[in-house]
């Protein structure tokens, strides 16, 4: 489904990604781990189409289609969803109005009829229940004044509504309490199917107990330097990154 080859990207002439290769197939869950500053968020932003980054080399294909020339919204319309490490506060735009606009613009781009207010409300109710959210969220300004955990939960709520084919979750587990982690993981598992894929960026093994990855990758200095099965996450949790850094430097 997602095929990244030799991806090099920089921001303001600082190279951040230095040849990333990643193949994600339908139905798979991939975890990406790696020390702070190694380029995990950069990779997810580049996949989602953030224009501040210059892609100098390499390719990103979704189902064989080159997406590098596409705008962020076009990528979203193809079914890419990024849960932000730091969701942005948008004062004055209520969660409802935002979701209504996002869903209907996406439907429009896909040639579907807009959803009626009633349908929309029903759908939002259903997903809020799944994520055990209070409905007072809907009338609040998007992310404004939300606690760290609430912001993350709101991201997964949006994901549940958009039903993306490729979900990239950038440290969605950071800042969640134990119950919230379970609820969010449950939301992600709910979305999983043979047709879609999930990329989890995380620092902790804990999330991976709830959402079992098929592959674990270590990103370091802008490259994937090690890949393995779910046992690699356990090894990292136990040993840290030093041994990997040594391997790379050797």
């Amino acid at each position: 489904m997602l095929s990244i080859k030799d991806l090099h990207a920089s921001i303001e002439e600082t190279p951040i990604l230095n040849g990333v290769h990643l193949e994600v197939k339908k139905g798979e869950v991939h975890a990406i781990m790696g020390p702070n500053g190694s380029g995990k968020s950069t990779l997810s932003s580049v996949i989602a189409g953030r224009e501040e980054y210059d892609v100098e080399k390499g390719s990103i294909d979704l189902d064989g289609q080159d997406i590098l020339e596409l705008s962020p919204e076009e990528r979203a319309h193809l079914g890419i969803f990024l849960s932000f490490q730091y969701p942005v506060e948008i004062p004055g735009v209520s969660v409802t109005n935002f979701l209504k606009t996002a869903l209907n613009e996406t439907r429009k781009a896909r040639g579907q009829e807009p959803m009626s207010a009633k349908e929309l409300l029903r759908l939002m109710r259903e997903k809020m229940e799944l994520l055990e959210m209070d409905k007072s969220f809907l009338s609040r300004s998007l992310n404004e004044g939300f606690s760290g955990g609430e912001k993350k939960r709101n991201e997964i709520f949006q994901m549940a509504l958009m039903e993306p084919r490729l979900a990239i979750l950038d440290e969605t587990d950071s800042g969640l309490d134990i119950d919230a982690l379970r609820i969010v993981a449950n939301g992600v598992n709910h979305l999983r199917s043979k047709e879609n894929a999930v990329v989890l960026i995380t620092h902790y093994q804990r999330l991976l107990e709830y959402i079992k990855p098929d592959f674990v990758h270590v990103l370091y200095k802008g490259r994937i330097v090690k890949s393995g099965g779910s046992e690699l996450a356990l090894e990292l949790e136990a040993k840290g990154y030093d041994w990997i850094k040594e391997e790379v430097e050797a």
Partner: protein
Amino acid sequence: MNSDQLRDKLSSSFIVFENELNGERRTPLHQKRRAAMERFEMKGFPSTRDEEWKYTNLKPLLGTDYKIFHEGEQSLEFREIKRFFLNDIDTYKIVFVNGKYSSWLSETTHRGFDICTFSAALQRHRHVLDEYFGRSDEEPSSTMDLNTAFAQEGAFIRIGKNAHVDKPVEIVHFTTADAGPSFNQPRNLIVLEEGSSAEVIERHRCLGEQETLTNAVSEVFLGAQARLSLFRIQNDAPQAGLIDHTNIHLSRDAHAHTATFSMGGRFVRNDLAFFFNEPNATAQLDGLSLLDGGEFADQHTLVDHRVPHCESREFYKGVYGGAAKGVFNGKVMVRPKAQKTNAFQENKNLLLSEKAAVDTKPQLEIFADDVKCSHGCTVGQLDEEALFYLRSRGIPEHESKALLLYAFGDEVIQRVPLKALRQRLHRLMAQKLDVDFQLNL
């Protein structure tokens, strides 16, 4: 035509105007007109050499051979202009077409209070005019003087003691194509006596392609405990210019709220002044400039705290796209006697393009020591992070920008208590941003 020639034309027009007045020429009111004309002739139109007009160049508007008087009457069908009124609610209407009152389109009253015209007041309420006309400004600007010199028509609203106007009053000034390029000088007088209240909405609309320049004055006097809301929708045609002067005088415990929405037209200059004459009065001044293309709006405000224990809150926002330019000049004067003053001012601007610009100038002159005053101004751009966030959720760039701007502007619109007007402003804002949001924010 240049500004000197326009001034000469106005001088000779004044003589014609006087000659038609007959008996009225000797009234005290006309003496005020004549004195104002003399001052205008001395000073002429303001130029960018004037401190108060430093960022605002009137000159391009003074090159047109405007018609000063309109002959004949022009009739309009209500359905042609229906869209310029609030249709979801019942309102009083004072409507002018090419400077002449249209009784056909208006809905005025003398029952309980007077909602009528300046010319009617000249007949029926001369004592009120004698008391208030020309009183609102101790140092009138030359354009204000010019309006005073020719004052003969406009809205007249007088609300007696403890009366509450049961529905909003809409004042709408139309100009039509057959009027040719026209110079309009409406003159409003609003007097709210003790304990009374009213809501007023004013707009100017040029129908047709002709150039217009409107030089308007509103004099407003609020008695003790009186409450006034005064809303302006300024989204006139691209060839229409407006200079507005509004002076609001507040007595004890009075409250005035103005909200000015400048969303179009070639040129807008709002001279808005609040004078606190007695203690415990409060004022709220809100404004939103939402401009693009070559549009221009200058929000020039003065809040004069002359007495103790008054409060003013000023909140202006601006969005400038294309080659639009804006000015915010907010002067707050706290005189030595005005202890325990609260005066707050905030001005936030967004520039959407490299050619867009705003000059913002807070001017706090504080001569009392026991006061709470603050001001803040920001000039920024659209938040790129927020834009990416919205786009990554499938909202196209144009709509994402519009959504952020809509939210930015909505902060001012939310301050309007009148729901029908809020809805209208939301529609106008969506139109201006060229999006089809059906949002109930």
